[in-house]
């Protein structure tokens, strides 16, 4: 297909952050009037590309062209003037302002003079009317539903006379109903002559909305073409590359119960009853899966079993328990501290301390060994945890918790946000622990992960353990 003259174009754009090459000399052409999806896994370079298009980042080499004219790089103002508007994934709205005030704020051209509310509001009313949206412009922004806030963001873009609207992971925050509504919005915008760039990682939505798709992997373009020629499989393959072999699960005889909870109740952070009379048993040599939608008490249950959160009822567990938290940055690592100290956090009761005094050289040696064994790629044990990629950070956490060969392991969404290879590594380690006789409780929202790893799976909903699903007995 011959593609005439692009409205927005990246030519040989490169950008790196420290040692990471986020974008490696890429060429993208966005045609007028199309919905152009940019697909890729976490860390593929999507956000970097989008921020370069929006003028929030300057490329190290290469050009951004609007209507075939090179645009000044690294200037959000200039890109806005040229008609490129960016809708961030995390909305840029002042929650304590009304919708009208937020729109006026965005239209302010300078910091002096009177506050002009009427004109931008008129414009926004017209735009909203054209799209058939009912928006209460006097409502406090924080009171709007997420989908409504997104519309306000889109209105902001339309009010700047944007020709090109870049949407960063727009569906990530939406509920299912809001997503189908959003698909209609994108189509309506395209029909009114706008060009849409859609940053996405969910295939189904790309198929529902896009005309053209560009796939990024590791900062390079691995595919670019009309959507019609593509299937789920071909795009998924392009996104992740060759899939590594599936984790192999060997037959292990489940033995004695290592972790038992009997009728326990756990309170959440806000004092709510997060877990209601839950009972479960995990045996040596088995992985018990715990599924369910986020926020149904799984994390509270996991924390209670790990002894981090108080619980009423009976919990029998060994003294040493390995807990692999779901949020690497929040609950796992101390990002500013060096790797060896991050590993040390899991060794507070080990013989790396004598009477509370650190044996420093022993600790450094031990940390280097763990990093070897868990294939952590880093400059040295002294590198701050912040400097590692997400996958390597998770390997640090896995090494910290699993290298002690704990009897009981509680892992919460251990592969969330990891690329396929890093996820496979973590899965292998969990299976290895099971093989070695550990009792593993795997809390995950990813059914594929549970199906691949768990011997049996419980389901959690509104704080109650629902039913026991038998594993496939592989």
């Amino acid at each position, binding site marked *: 297909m011959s593609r005439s003259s692009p409205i927005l174009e990246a030519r040989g754009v490169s950008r790196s*952050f*420290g040692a*990471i090459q*986020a974008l490696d000399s890429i060429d993208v052409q966005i045609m007028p009037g199309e919905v152009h999806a940019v697909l890729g896994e976490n*860390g593929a*370079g999507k*956000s*970097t590309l989008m*921020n370069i298009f929006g003028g929030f*980042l300057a490329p190290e080499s290469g050009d951004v062209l609007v209507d075939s004219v090179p645009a000044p790089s690294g200037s959000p103002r200039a890109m806005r003037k040229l008609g490129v508007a960016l809708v961030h994934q995390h909305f840029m709205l002042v929650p304590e302002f009304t919708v009208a005030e937020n729109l006026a704020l965005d239209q302010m051209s300078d910091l002096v003079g009177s506050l002009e509310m009427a004109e931008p509001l008129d414009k926004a009313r017209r735009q909203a009317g054209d799209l058939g949206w009912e928006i209460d412009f006097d409502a406090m922004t924080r009171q709007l539903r997420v989908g409504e806030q997104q519309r306000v963001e889109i209105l902001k873009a339309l009010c700047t006379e944007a020709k090109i609207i870049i949407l960063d992971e727009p569906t990530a925050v939406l509920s299912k109903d809001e997503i189908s509504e959003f698909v209609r919005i994108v189509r309506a915008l395209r029909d009114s002559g706008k060009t849409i760039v859609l940053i996405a990682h969910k295939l189904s939505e790309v198929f529902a909305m896009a005309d053209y798709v560009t796939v990024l992997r590791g900062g390079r373009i691995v595919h670019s073409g009309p959507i019609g020629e593509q299937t789920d499989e071909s795009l998924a393959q392009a996104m992740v590359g060759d899939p590594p072999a599936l984790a192999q699960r060997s037959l292990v005889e489940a033995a004695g119960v290592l972790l038992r909870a009997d009728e326990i109740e756990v309170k959440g952070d806000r004092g709510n009853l997060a877990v209601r009379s839950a009972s479960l048993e995990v045996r040596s040599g088995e992985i018990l899966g715990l599924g369910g939608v986020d926020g149904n008490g799984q994390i509270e249950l996991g*924390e209670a079993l*790990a*002894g*981090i959160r108080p619980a009423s009822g009976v919990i029998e567990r060994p003294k040493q328990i390995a*807990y692999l*938290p779901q*949020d690497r940055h*929040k*609950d*796992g*690592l*101390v*990002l*500013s*501290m060096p790797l060896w*100290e991050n590993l*040390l*956090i*899991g060794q*507070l009761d080990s013989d790396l*301390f004598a009477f*509370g*005094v*650190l044996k*420093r050289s022993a600790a450094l040696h031990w940390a280097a060994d763990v990093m070897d064994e868990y294939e952590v790629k880093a400059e040295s044990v002294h590198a701050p945890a912040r400097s590692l990629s997400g996958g390597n950070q998770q390997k640090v956490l896995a090494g910290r918790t699993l290298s002690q060969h704990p009897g009981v392991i509680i892992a919460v969404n251990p592969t969330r946000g990891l690329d396929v290879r890093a996820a496979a590594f973590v899965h292998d380690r969990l299976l290895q622990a099971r093989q070695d006789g550990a009792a593993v409780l795997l809390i995950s929202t990813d059914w594929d992960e549970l199906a691949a790893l768990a011997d049996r799976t419980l389901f959690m909903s509104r704080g109650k353990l629902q039913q026991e699903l038998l594993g496939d007995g592989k």
Partner: protein
Amino acid sequence: MKEALLVLAAGAGLALLLVLTLAAFGQDVGTSLRLLADGAFGDKYGIGRTAVRACPLILCALGLTVAWRAGMYNIGGEGQYLTGAVAGGFIYQVVSGVGPVVFHVVGLLGAAAAGAGLAWFAGWLEVKRGVQVVISTILMNFIVLKLVEWLVRGPLQEPNGLLPTSERLSREMMLARPDPQTDFHIGIWVVPIAILATWFWLYRTRAGFLNRAVGENQHAVRAAGQKPAHLRLRAMMISGALCGLAGGIDYMGWAGQISDGFSQEWGFIAIPVALLGALNPFGVAAAGVYFAALFAGSKELERFSQLDSSVVLVVQAAAVLGIVWAASWMKNRQQGGSE
């Protein structure tokens, strides 16, 4: 290597700031610097003057360092310092008859305990009641200040009941001075011990390691099975103990009595000292000596020019601004943005 360069740059920056400030005040820079150096290190009197000022500055700044490292922004060094001195004053009333050694040991322990208690209360308010330490400690400073004004007119007043001060300690009851002509007293030997101990504690013990970790990310510490609230309360108690100890030492070794003017704001001035020392005990020691020397040297400056010690505060304020600016500049350069 990189650290060494940073330290050199910081030292050069501080020297430059001093020169610029003197010039800005219209002083002859060469003469002023010589007067400052003479006043701070020129003879045994100067060295004594510097040491006796470095003592409260460094002890308080070490205390703040421990708390801040745990994420508890204790601004109450001044109040805890005064509380320590007051505790020493009360203990004197009780044990003065027993002799100096008992008074010194019990008095200093009591001073540390009193400072720790006050800081613990502020920590408890944050951990259990959500009142931020940065607010409560700064307010407690003023409460303690006013309390001292009342105490020296009430329970702590000297026996004759004439002056608003506590009873002056006799020479025997003061901490000994090897050379009575100088300010130097044996209490100052606590300072190097405290510097080394704080460093060892922070970087070589499990407790200190957790203290640093909880300040950087309390969630990770909690997920590792520790109790952040306990760690933070402990940090506040150590912090208050060091500040209180400073107050006790100054009472027994330098001032000899408690009065309205006992507070020379060492607990406040220790805040920028802790910051300039990059919350590292050795850095704190260097920053403490530098500013103590400036304060001591400015005594000499006062005699020969219009300037007084407030010029030191100008240098200090400029230095803190410079550090904050440099830190944010380096952070921007390191991160440069992220995906």
